[in-house]
């Protein structure tokens, strides 16, 4: 047990505490997460307990006096202790290791025991994150995601930051087909999004800017006619977008993209620092988004579909998986070229929707188009917010052609290429019906040839070995 282990991480807090380290592995190479984990969980529960006490107790403390306050504090402390004790049981039963087949194994559970085996050949992403409380203790959590539907991820908490990074590079190295004893991949920063650009860009997104403008107009008008009563309405129309802007600002603050041999590495977050590695072979679809107001600065946002990431996360919330929240177009294009080497977006030949599509889509009809080359299929849509989606041929899941009644009257049809769940939709709207079907059939063929030739799943294997 942990008592026999020597102190490896020493004194992170500077409090003169000496913590036993994660220690060496047992005889099967199995390891625990860091023993400080129960304490972090206990401490994390305190603010929640206080919040609950305030919600339930409310103003009663003033009336009940000191005794009630002390009793409440003791209760909160007790809750923290119970949480920590429960977490300790979880810690004792949590083991992780690499088995002889090269798979990542995790055994866990207190009452219900769970044994998970992650096939690293199907690895999608490894994230290292530092939630607020874990950061106070210099700890980090590691999330390993493999392809699959539903709950196909494992979250290990907590490890020291150094251990978390070492684990990440070991997982990535094994998944990329290298032996486990590789040094952590060195990285070089490519871009860092300035906080000012991020704030401006979030405010200038089409829907946000539109809602803020409408709110301002309503507020101005009602103030003109009847004083401040308009505030009630604008609290929703203006408050929600502002809340979203603030949330995203905190989430994507300090967004940095750097290059490392195992893929592009993204770091972001103000209160919770996240690190995500995007292996080039695992990107399913890419989209450039260009809201109206961003064009004067030449900015774009790049979104990705990565299998296993960006579906519903643990809280059931959809996560928008970004490559970069805002960047000048040429920088973004250069980034995408690292994921899809040799792709020249500006050299694509676009096949536009016919002029009669104007009657189906009066605003965006000029932008509607589809293009392809030997690597990717691309679709373009949207006039106010321009969208350009790119899907590498081997990532085609299935192809659909759809036609609504209005499209049918105009002899138009839309072509969709289905990708794994994520923010990107690859849709060529309102093409000539016969042409849509031709493109769909041709896309299935292109996908089949590309799949036969595809080697990108072992992206770090040296080219000489093939």
């Amino acid at each position: 047990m942990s008592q026999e282990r020597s102190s490896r991480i020493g004194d992170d807090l500077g409090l003169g505490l000496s913590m036993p380290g994660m220690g060496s592995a047992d005889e099967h190479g199995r390891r625990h997460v860091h023993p400080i984990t129960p304490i972090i969980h206990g401490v994390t529960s305190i603010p929640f307990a206080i919040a609950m006490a305030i919600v339930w107790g409310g103003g009663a403390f003033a009336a009940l006096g000191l005794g009630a306050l002390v009793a409440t504090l003791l209760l909160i402390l007790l809750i923290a202790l119970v949480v920590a004790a429960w977490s300790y049981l979880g810690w004792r039963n949590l083991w992780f290791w690499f088995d002889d087949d090269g798979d990542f194994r995790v055994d866990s559970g207190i009452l219900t025991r769970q044994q998970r085996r992650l096939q690293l050949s199907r690895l999608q992403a490894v994230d290292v994150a530092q939630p607020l409380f874990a950061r106070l203790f210099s700890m980090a959590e590691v999330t390993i995601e493999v392809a699959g539907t539903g709950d196909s991820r494992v979250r290990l908490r907590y490890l020291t930051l150094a251990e978390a990074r070492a684990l990440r590079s070991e997982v990535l190295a094994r998944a990329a087909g290298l032996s486990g004893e590789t040094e952590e991949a060195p990285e070089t920063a490519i871009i860092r999004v300035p906080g000012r650009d991020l704030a401006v860009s979030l405010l200038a997104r089409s829907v946000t800017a539109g809602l803020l403008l409408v709110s301002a107009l309503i507020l101005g008008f009602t103030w003109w006619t009847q004083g401040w009563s308009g505030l009630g309405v604008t609290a929703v129309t203006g408050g929600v977008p502002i809340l979203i802007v603030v949330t995203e600002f905190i989430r994507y603050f300090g967004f940095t993209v750097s290059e490392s041999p195992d893929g592009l590495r993204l770091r972001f977050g103000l209160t919770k620092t996240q690190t995500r590695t995007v292996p080039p072979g695992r990107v399913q679809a890419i989209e450039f988004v260009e809201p109206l107001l961003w064009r004067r600065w030449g900015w774009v946002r790049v979104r990705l579909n990565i299998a296993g990431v960006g579906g519903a996360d643990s809280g059931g919330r959809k996560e928008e998986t970004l490559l970069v929240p805002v960047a000048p177009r040429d920088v973004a294009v250069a980034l995408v070229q690292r994921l899809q080497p040799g792709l020249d977006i500006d050299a694509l030949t676009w096949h536009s929707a016919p002029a009669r599509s104007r009657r189906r889509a009066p605003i965006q009809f000029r932008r509607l188009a589809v293009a392809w080359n030997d690597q990717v299929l691309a679709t373009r849509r949207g006039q106010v917010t321009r969208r350009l989606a790119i899907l590498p041929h081997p990532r085609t899941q299935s192809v659909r052609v759809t036609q609504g009644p209005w499209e049918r009257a105009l002899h138009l049809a839309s072509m969709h290429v289905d990708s794994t769940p994520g923010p990107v939709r690859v849709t060529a709207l309102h093409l000539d019906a016969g042409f849509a079907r031709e493109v769909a059939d041709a896309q299935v063929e292109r996908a089949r040839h590309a799949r036969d030739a595809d080697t990108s799943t072992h992206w770090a294997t040296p080219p000489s070995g093939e």
Partner: protein
Amino acid sequence: MVDRSEGAFTFAPGWTPVSPRLVTARRITLGLAYLLVAAAVVALFVIPDLPRWVAGVVAGVSVVIFVWLWWLIGRRVRSYGYAEREDDLLVTSGIMFRRLVIVPYGRMQLVDVQAGPIDRALGVTTVQLHTAAATTDAAIPGLLPQDAAELRDRLARRGEQRSAGL
């Protein structure tokens, strides 16, 4: 028959329609649902304060909708079709909103075969294909159980031969 010669949704030879028994199954379901509607309409007639003509109009409208849905079921079922090509499966359906899905065998992650109680009594089965994309919507309803089982096995076999990573 539905016009199958139009542009994007061409039915080449080799397309298989689904069993007409699906029409019966769906009409039974419609009939059961309409029992509730009928009960509600009858209730309108016995409410004392409500003028008779209001209840009459409601009854008339529900009968018209019923006839329309009854007819629509026939057309919808005839619009279903699938074709097995060498490397992929094609599924088409829809009258108002038409669609055609092309699923490469190598992309299929699992094949579901399912039948509800009414379907089972009439001997129709649905085969549903899933890929890694949630938007792939490839369901073939109205297959005879024997055909459905054979189709599933064929698809699974071809999927295994051509299976690719993500």
